[in-house]
């Protein structure tokens, strides 16, 4: 069990390294097989870790001390409910995207599989780590891999969007470093749990500096989470990225949101002295602005990929605003929403490519790159004669409607349960006097659902009720299956809404009571008979 905690980081690292060592492109089939095996192994590991965290009474299954140094000095990995939940979400989407990429997308450029694994390593590490600077390193790993994946397949649209994406993220990383070093300069520690114990004791003369550091750090994460007005880079990049990559990118914004949830509740939750609720108002306002921007953007977008990108913004805006509300019940509902919307968006990004196939300019890019990598002719022919599933349009249509239901929050799928839970918990008991900001949030939340419904209905009519001479896309089973599985997971989340919601509420409760996390990290036992450990 103990060594399993580091497996989500080490396994993709080794898988990626082996793929590179085997010669990368010459043995793409081996790389593909390794990628699939590792992705599914990560799903299994995440489930085991999730179960361990779920049965742990405090919500923290344990800390993994690298080198077995005691906690504030060593860099720790912390396995708690929120981290394992995000791990499971990532590995599910990754497995779906990996299977999807086998049909054609892994052939349009080089080194798809190793980069994919390195990105998973970065994402998993960012979820697990309990140290601010280590978080920086893992985020750089995932960003470096994501730069490569965003440019996968090349083409001028991707390079143009990638240029903006890289520049914005490099600046965000520099802000991250400034924030981390300010916090270190004030508190003298980078361990998150240790920070949580030291922040209440910070004197008034240093508090301004601490809050400046936390604010700058927050900006860096809000750029990744895509809060308005820091999100201008997102729609272009996500729309230009190859579909399996875009599906994983749906999780990348949630990495930013995860860190905001983690740090704002751990460092500035209730009972942390003078800085309690630091930044909550800003998160609420910014989140609401993001929801409004995303909703208007999705109404205005012409093609489906941009529509999906703006839906990503609506999703992260809703999550940021609910964190800003700072109530246990709302946080639990927001986590439910996070899982549901990310699965829905991942499925939607994969589906768009199937629906728009043979019609979009992306197909031309694909053709060009196929010429560049001309050695693939035989496998391309093989693909054309592969089994195409019948009644393609019907199945695609059903999947599209399911995505629309999940993303816009209409019954009967999980999007509705999530939105309903957020609205009821935000309203609270009828006797409560609600502040104006909450009313605006409720209004925006409902209106964004309406906007998503209108935009998706319009896009659906355009592509499914078009003139009968429309070319029917050739879709293979391994492309349709990941979409179906992701939507099935949304359906399971709806059917099992009771247990899932209880888990989310337990997670929210342990997040709002950070002393469990702090004790879980700092008090994790050092083996007494271990002579290698420090004295």
């Amino acid at each position, binding site marked *: 069990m103990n060594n399993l905690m580091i497996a989500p980081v080490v396994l993709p690292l080794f898988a990626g390294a082996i793929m590179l060592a085997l010669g990368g492109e010459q043995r793409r089939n081996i790389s593909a097989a390794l990628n699939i095996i590792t992705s599914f192994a990560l799903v299994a590991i995440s489930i085991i870790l999730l179960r361990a965290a779920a049965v742990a009474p405090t919500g923290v299954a344990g800390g993994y001390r690298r080198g077995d140094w005691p906690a504030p000095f060593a860099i720790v990995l912390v396995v708690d409910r929120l981290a394992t939940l995000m791990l499971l979400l990532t590995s599910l989407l990754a497995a779906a995207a990996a299977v999807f990429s086998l049909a054609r997308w892994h052939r349009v450029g080089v080194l798809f599989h190793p980069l994919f694994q390195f990105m998973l390593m970065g994402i998993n590490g960012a979820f697990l780590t309990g140290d601010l600077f280590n978080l*920086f390193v893992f985020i750089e790993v995932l960003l470096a891999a994501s730069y490569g994946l965003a440019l996968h397949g*090349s083409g001028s649209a991707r390079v143009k969007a990638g240029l903006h994406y890289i520049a914005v993220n490099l600046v965000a990383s520099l802000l991250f470093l400034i924030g981390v070093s300010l916090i270190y300069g004030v508190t003298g520690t980078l361990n998150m749990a240790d920070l949580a114990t030291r922040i209440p004791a910070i004197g008034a003369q240093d508090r301004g500096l601490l809050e400046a550091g936390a604010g700058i750090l927050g900006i860096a994460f809000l750029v990744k989470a895509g809060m308005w007005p820091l999100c201008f880079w997102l729609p272009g990049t996500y729309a230009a990225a190859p579909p399996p990559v875009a599906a994983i990118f749906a999780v990348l914004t949630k990495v930013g949101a995860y860190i905001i949830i983690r740090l704002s509740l751990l460092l500035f939750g209730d009972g942390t002295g003078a800085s309690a609720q630091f930044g909550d108002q800003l998160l609420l306002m910014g989140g609401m602005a993001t929801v409004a921007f995303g909703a208007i953007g999705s109404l205005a977008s012409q093609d489906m990929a941009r529509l999906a990108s703006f839906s990503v913004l609506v999703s992260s805006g809703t999550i940021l605003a609910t964190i800003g509300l700072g109530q246990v019940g709302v946080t639990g509902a927001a986590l439910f929403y996070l899982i549901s919307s990310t699965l829905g968006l991942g499925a939607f990004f994969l589906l768009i490519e199937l629906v728009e196939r043979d019609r979009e300019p992306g197909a031309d890019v694909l053709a060009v790159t196929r010429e560049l990598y001309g050695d693939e002719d035989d496998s391309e022919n093989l693909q054309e004669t592969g089994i195409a599933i019948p009644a393609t349009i019907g199945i695609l249509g059903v999947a599209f409607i399911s995505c629309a239901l999940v993303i816009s929050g209409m019954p009967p799928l999980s999007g509705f349960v999530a939105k309903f839970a957020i609205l009821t918990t935000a309203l609270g008991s009828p006797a409560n006097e609600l502040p104006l900001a909450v009313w605006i949030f409720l209004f925006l939340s409902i209106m964004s659902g309406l906007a998503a419904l209108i935009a998706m209905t319009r896009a659906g009519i355009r592509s499914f009720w078009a003139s009968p001479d429309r070319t029917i896309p050739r879709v293979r089973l391994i492309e349709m299956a990941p979409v179906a599985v992701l939507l099935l997971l949304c359906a399971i989340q709806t059917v099992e809404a009771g247990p899932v919601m209880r888990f989310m509420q337990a997670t929210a409760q342990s997040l709002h009571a950070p002393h469990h996390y702090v004790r879980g990290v700092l008090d994790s036992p050092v083996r007494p008979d271990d002579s290698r450990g420090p004295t």
Partner: protein
Amino acid sequence: MEIVLAIGIGVLAGSGGWLLLRPRTFQVIIGLSLLSYAVNLFIVAMGRLKIDAAPILGSHAAEDITGLPDPLPQALVLTAIVISFATTALFLVVLIASRGLTGTDHVDGREP
């Protein structure tokens, strides 16, 4: 000492920020490099400045660690230098690819 370092960081960050907002990709990459120098110096400064102190613990000086500079920011800055060097190199490749594909060095891929 402090004022010299502060002015140095300020000048680097200011010119880096200005260059970052320029329309040519080469200016952007130089701006990013200058900004990362400023950030690296800033990290060192956050470990408090010390002059004439041994950088690492000697064998006989174990009893007095207060006279030594903080080693952690040095480790952090080393990591930050490596990472920013690697990402800048990667950005350079994308920059050249963009120049080759679009025929212009404007950040938007076309002349305004």
